[in-house]
Structure formats: structure tokens, C-alpha cells
């Protein structure tokens, strides 16, 4: 199994604050990798570097073997990486259908085809009933699903999910987990997710990468990671051990 995504010693500083230092990890094709760590560890910064929002100060990101050299976010998407935002950004003035169609246009040659694909993805995410509703009128869990639907419609090989489960009830979380499992199993969709909801992380991930203060402190199978003292310390503090 080849590595779809290779993050190779990337670093990023913001005005002297080292947000990410020398981070490396790989995401093999067809797997689900969880990127976890306490708040402020640099997870979203890593995502933003992969997605082209930030330019890495050092290091390289390779997708399917080729480096994403200074790629803009739209170029990254066209290359096959879809992403969601931690603070969801729906197109508030457009309907659900229109929102997802925008995403589908990335993968389809005509508007007609994009609409068909969008309809299918909307049903997959369980938003079929709300198809003609304005995005602004959706509840937060629905907006999260819309966010995922939109990214999914772009036809990505790799999907970056940024804290998609935050704020969802356990039933909704389970639903999302089931959906991602299905997409991964049936379509071979590779997923890299940032998540704090451990229930989802443990249920989905084949591998975990743990960040703390901008560095990778552990990487491996979920069962091993949850017993790793360094990881426990980073989450619970020294005294807890």
C-alpha cells in the first residue's frame, strides 16, 4: 500500500511562535489516520499547510508522490484533496443543493452532471429533505453535514476533516462515523481527521499521530497510543500520571 500523503518535516512559525516544528507523518492510501493532540498543538496549522492555506516555512508535503509546492488551496483541491473547516463556512445565501453543486463542479464537466452528483452526495449525508433550504437556515449538525457533503462532492482521493464531530450528539456522531467507514470501505476514500471526540477517533482510525506543542510525540496504532505515557501526559498533565 503506497503512501497517498507524505508530510515531510514541515515547520511553521507565526511571528516567532513556533506553531509546527519538524512534523512528519504519512497517510497510506485507503486508510483513516487520526491527528490528535491537545488544543494548540498545531493540528489545524498542519492541515492548513497541506491544504495550501499556509506556506510551510520548511519541509515538503507530497501527495501521490508529487510535491505540493506552494500550491494554492484551489490547486490542492483540484489535485484531489478535499477539506472541511473547523468553523464551518456554508454558502449562506445559497440552498443546500447549490452549495454541494459548487463542490461537485470540481469533479464534473457539466452543470447537469454536477447537480446529479450533488443530489447523490446530499442523500448520502442524509440531507435529502433539506435540499432546497437555504444553508443559513440549517442547524449546526446539519451545517457540519453540509460541509462534509460539499467537500465530498469534489471527488477527492484524500479527505481532510477538521473536528467534524465537535458539537454533535452521540447519535449524530455514530452516524457520521458509519458514513466515513462506508466511504472508506466502499470507495477507498483516504481520510485524515483532526478530532477531539475520542469515541469517533477510536472507532475510525487505523493509525494515530499525536501532536504536542507543534511536534509529533507519538504515532502508531490506536491501542498503543492510548497507553503511551507521553501521550497521556500531554493530555492530562504530569500530575495525573
Amino acid at each position, binding site marked *: 500500500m503506497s503512501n497517498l500523503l507524505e508530510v515531510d518535516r514541515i515547520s511553521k512559525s507565526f511571528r516567532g511562535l513556533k506553531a509546527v516544528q519538524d512534523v512528519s507523518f504519512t497517510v497510506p492510501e485507503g486508510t483513516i489516520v487520526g491527528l490528535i493532540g491537545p488544543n494548540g498543538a498545531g493540528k489545524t496549522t498542519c492541515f492548513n499547510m497541506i491544504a495550501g492555506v499556509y506556506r510551510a516555512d520548511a519541509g515538503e508535503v507530497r501527495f501521490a508522490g508529487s510535491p505540493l509546492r506552494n500550491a494554492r488551496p484551489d490547486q490542492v483541491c483540484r489535485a484531489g484533496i478535499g477539506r472541511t473547516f473547523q468553523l464551518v463556512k456554508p454558502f449562506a*445565501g445559497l440552498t443546500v443543493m*447549490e452549495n454541494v*453543486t459548487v463542490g461537485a*463542479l470540481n469533479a464534473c464537466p457539466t452543470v447537469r452532471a454536477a447537480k446529479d452528483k450533488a443530489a447523490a452526495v446530499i442523500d448520502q449525508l442524509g440531507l435529502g429533505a433539506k435540499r432546497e433550504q437555504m444553508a443559513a437556515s440549517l442547524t449546526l449538525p446539519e451545517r457540519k453535514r453540509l460541509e462534509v457533503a460539499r467537500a465530498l462532492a469534489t471527488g477527492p482521493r484524500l479527505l481532510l476533516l477538521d473536528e467534524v464531530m465537535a458539537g454533535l450528539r452521540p447519535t449524530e456522531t455514530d452516524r457520521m462515523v458509519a458514513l466515513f467507514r462506508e466511504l472508506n470501505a466502499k470507495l477507498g476514500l483516504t481520510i485524515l481527521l483532526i478530532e477531539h471526540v475520542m469515541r469517533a477517533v477510536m472507532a475510525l482510525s487505523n493509525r494515530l499521530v499525536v501532536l504536542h506543542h507543534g511536534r509529533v510525540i507519538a504515532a502508531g496504532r490506536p491501542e498503543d497510543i492510548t497507553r503511551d505515557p507521553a501521550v497521556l501526559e500531554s493530555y492530562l498533565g504530569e500530575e495525573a500520571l
Partner: protein
Amino acid sequence: MRQALLEGVPRRGLHMLAGLLLALIALPLVAGDYIITVMILILYFAYVGQAWNIMMGFAGQLSLGHALYVGLGAYAAAALYVHFGISPWVGLWAAMAVSALAGAVIGFLAFRFGVAGVYFAILTIAFAEFARIGFDHWSWVGGSAGFFLPVANYARNDLLTLRGSPAMFYYVTLAMTAAALVLCHVLLRSRVGYHWQAIRESPDAAQALGIDIFRSKMIAVVLSAAMTSLGGVVFAFHYNNLFPEQIFHISRSIELILGPIVGGVGTLLGPIVGAFLLTALSESLQEVMRALGVDVPGIKQVFYGICLLVVVMFLPDGVWPPLSRRLGLGNGRAKEQAEEGGP
């Protein structure tokens, strides 16, 4: 093709539009020259308002210097006609090219260098002012003294050189406005239309979905500029005189955005409704003033200012969306949903 064109448009709305169009076509047969001239003004503002709406309502870029494109179009076509005898039907291509180029320059400078929002608006004002002062000093097109087209006999209608009666200009502007409406309708349903609206709503999300923001914005600006310039061509050949102080002036820029704002920015029929409403009301106001024997220069502009104020404060989406709901035509948004129009 026909099915795609009409998909999602409520039946009722289509019938009303067809009825309106027939009435407008028949108008010169029953109305006098004064009404026709007022209608030409309305259609002109509806047209350039629609062109401006592409940039603002669809792509979200506030331009307060659109008079630049009107002026460039007007001068380009007029100069070719006066100096080289070239028909406006050929000259209009030069007009569009010049305006498109100006739009491309402004767009490129703005988007490459991240000039957005209010700063972008000020940039557009600066360019229009630049043109105003520049043309004031350009003697080949008359400078500040003005540029004049030879006025011919109005009895004969010469479509080729756009010399003729008000009725002729009326049909030309009517055709332009109708064509602009169809074009915008098609654009909104097209790939670029979706891209524009996505950028307008959330540029970050749009980028994350694979949309090349620079390219989409440039298309909007260039298209809007080229379209607007045609309004300038008609302006030049209808009024037969051009003064930089007037045609490039910031009041022209503000005038032409009043229609879309009052009618509804980003909607398909907003600019047309707004133009009708504003011009009809202001002409009536002026008639009333004339009947009372009161001559107050500037009252029309104060009236426009008050209309703008009222709309911005109380009807931020414009007049058309609530009106459209009253008429049972859906919520007046640019995209009519297929479900909504059905019985």
C-alpha cells in the same frame, strides 16, 4: 437547450414577462416621443445596472467607477465614427475591447495585490477620475470642450449608423436589455455563475472547493466592463455629444448603481425593476414640480438620495424580492427553484 433555459423558472413569471415584453414592443405605437424618451432612459439604466450587477451582485465586487466603462465605450465608438466614418456596429467591438482592457487592468491590479472591499471601491473611483481628467486634456476627442457627432435628419432611420428617431433607439435599448436579462439568467446557471456566487458568499470555502478565485473575479470584471461599454455606445449615438466632466463623473457611477440597489442586488430582475421605479418616480416628481412652476435644480438627486437611504435602511435586499413574493413568483432570488414554480 430550451428545457435547460427555462428550467426552474416559474410558469407564472414567464407569462408575466412575455406579457410585459409584448406591451413594451407595442409601446411606440401608442405613446408620444416624450414617453419613449423616458423609456429609453429607463432601459439604459436597466441595462447598465444589469451589467454592474454582474460584478457586484454575482461576484461581490463593489465598483463605484463604472462610468469609466460607459465613457470609454462612448468615446471609442464615437471617435471611430467621427474620425473614420466607421459604423457603430463595428465600433462597438472596439468599445468593448477598450473597456474590457480597462476592466482587466483594474481587476488584475486589485486581485493580484489583494485590494478588496472598500479599498477596491476607492480604486475604481480613482480610475474613473483619472479618465475624466485625462479625457479633459485629450484634444483628439475634443477635450473638455466636448466631442460632437454630426446630427442627421431624424426623419430617416439609419440603423447602420444609429441615426434616427427615438423609436429606433427605443427598440435598440429594449433589445439590449432583453438580451442582458437572458445572458444573466444563463450565466447564473452556468459553472462560472456558481463560482461567482460561491466566491461572493465565502471566498475561503470557494477556494477549498477548487475554484480559482482570481480567474473567476477577472471574468466578472471584464464581462461587466464590456457589457457596460455597449451602454456607452448607445449613449454617444443617442445624445450626440460627450463631455468628460459629465460622462466620467462620479455622479454617473452612483446613478447607474441606484437601479440595482433599489431593485435588489444579485437578483435577476432587480436592476430592471429598480430602473423602472426610480426613473418613473423621478420623472413624475419633475412633472409635478414643473406643473407647480417650481424649478429646483438638484431635487432629482435629493430624491434619489432619499430613495437610496430608505432602501438601504429598510429594504436591504431591494424592492424586487418582497414584490416578487407578493406576485407569487418565488422569493425573487436569482435562482428560482424548480419546485416553487409548479402548481
